[in-house]
């Protein structure tokens, strides 16, 4: 697939403070999660790829064209900023139609697109209220509405779930995922790992201005060969299975879980471990009910990568 967003050795400093360092990336259509702790450089990266700031070193292009001061490209981009800032004296409707005006749509087009966007974020009933009377969740959804109202190919969302209650989060996650199937390129940043995990498996990990890892969550997991994986096995006789596992070199630790008949095995070679389970199961006549990997999620990868 052809990349939509490309960066080459992208670097940014704020005075003496490093914002982003030597980032070379290609981003294809679909949802890409940008993950990292606060101050990692996520917002700097998103600001660079949306042309709000210019790189000190390197290039950043969208559809093969440089983004900085290339305003026609913004017809294809929808950006939802991190900050909770609005033209507070406007109503939700005036805010969305007003910004659509800057896309040069006719009055009828503006109204049609604003109506659709507000319907998507479920704000139609409150569209005539002034923004300053909106709740945090409504404001987040309004930001999302202005980002999608002009039907952009590329949607960039900077911490869209910040400050939302669980219900609000679920709504936004559902909205973001609903755009996945339309061939769009969506970039979402967050420092809350399960939120990103709920939206996508394709992630970019940023820490201290550098890309730690990128790709599918499983691919990233494979990259970390030295990092032990914990695998949970629920079976009819965990103690007998455990005695077989501890003879293997690639098994580092075996524990019995508090859950009934569950064994936790730590291994540094997942592939070998998984291929061993069926033979041991048959040989010892042990019925395996469930195999899961509790640390095969973003939190584990992230903690390992940032050295926690």
């Amino acid at each position, binding site marked *: 697939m052809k990349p939509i967003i490309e960066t080459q050795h992208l670097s940014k400093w*704020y005075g003496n403070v490093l914002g982003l360092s030597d980032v070379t990336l290609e981003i294809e259509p679909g949802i890409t999660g940008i993950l990292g702790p606060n101050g990692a450089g996520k917002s700097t990266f998103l600001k660079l790829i*949306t*042309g*709000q*700031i*210019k790189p000190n070193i390197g290039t950043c292009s969208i559809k093969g064209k440089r983004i900085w*001061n290339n*305003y*026609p*490209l*913004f*017809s294809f*981009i*929808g*950006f939802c*900023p991190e*900050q909770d*800032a*609005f*033209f507070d*004296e*406007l109503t939700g409707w*005036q805010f969305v139609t*007003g*910004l659509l*005006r*800057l*896309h*040069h749509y006719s009055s009828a087009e503006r109204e049609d697109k604003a109506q659709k966007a507000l319907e998507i974020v479920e704000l139609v009933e409150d569209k005539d209220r002034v923004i300053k009377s909106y709740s945090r969740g409504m404001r987040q959804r309004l930001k999302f509405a*202005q980002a999608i109202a002009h039907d952009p190919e590329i949607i960039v969302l900077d911490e869209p779930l910040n400050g939302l209650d669980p219900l609000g989060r679920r709504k936004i996650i559902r909205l973001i995922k609903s755009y996945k199937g339309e061939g769009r390129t969506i970039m979402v940043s967050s420092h809350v790992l399960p939120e990103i995990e709920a939206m996508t498996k394709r992630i970019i990990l940023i820490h201290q201005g550098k890309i730690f890892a990128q790709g599918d969550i499983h691919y990233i997991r494979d990259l970390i060969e030295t990092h032990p994986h914990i695998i949970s096995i629920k079976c009819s006789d965990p103690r007998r299975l455990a005695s077989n596992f501890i003879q293997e070199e690639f098994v580092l630790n075996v524990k019995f879980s508090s859950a009934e008949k569950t064994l936790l095995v730590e291994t540094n070679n997942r592939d070998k471990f998984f291929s061993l389970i069926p033979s041991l199961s048959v040989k010892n006549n042990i019925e395996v009910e469930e195999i899961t990997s509790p640390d095969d999620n973003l939190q584990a990868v992230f903690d390992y990568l940032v050295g926690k």
Partner: protein
Amino acid sequence: MVQDSKEKLSFFLSSLKDVYTFFFFMGKKSKKMKIFFLISILPVVIALIIKINQFFSDRTPIQGIYIFNNMTVVMYLQFLILLLALFYGTSVCSEEVEGKTLTYLTTRPVAKSAMLIGKYAAYTSLIIILTTIGVTLSFFILNLNDLLNFSLYKILLRDVVVLSLGLICYTSFFTFIGTIMKKSILFGLIFSFGWENVIQYFPGSTQRFAIAHYLKSLLPAPKTGRFSFLMFRLEPSPPLLAVFMLLLITGVFLGLACVLFSWKEYIFED
């Protein structure tokens, strides 16, 4: 090539119109507009007090047009238009940066220069309307006994044009200051009530470094009276040159503001 340039110009003008409409609407609704409307109506209140006082006083009343001319200089030229231009001009850029709303504007398919000029034009129009309302109401109140003297309306028109030119010029200067400085209001206050009010009284060519000099060059020489020192001009510039200079200053500062706004990065403070 020519076709391409024509298309670019047409797109730029269309962007200007869209930005202008957006900010004119928003400016009209803003709390700031309500506050400045009340401030700009102060001369009207003063005119009303003067008129009521004249009505009940036994003394021979001073001519309404004389008071109006002085009011134009004292209240408007030397105070109100500076205040309006300062607060609206600097806010063209700074309110978007301080309010962190700049992101919504710079991620639209609109050239940054069109964004800046469009917003400048919207705010300048609004403050011209505010000033015109105040000046016109003051004029009618002060000349209530002489409303059929149509020659007076020329004076009203001239003053409105001069004040509008002043607003256009000062606002462009303050727009530039707002794009380049963080503490633009402080600098603007020093410039408005320090530099402008002092330098215009300097002899020789120095007075030409004040915008007020060119504005006052467009007004007639003062008659002797209580406020004549405020109209003191050592060497007024010819009216045509004064208009040219005002437009040149406007163009230069607006051009510089556009260049800066297009290339400068605005980093929001947490």
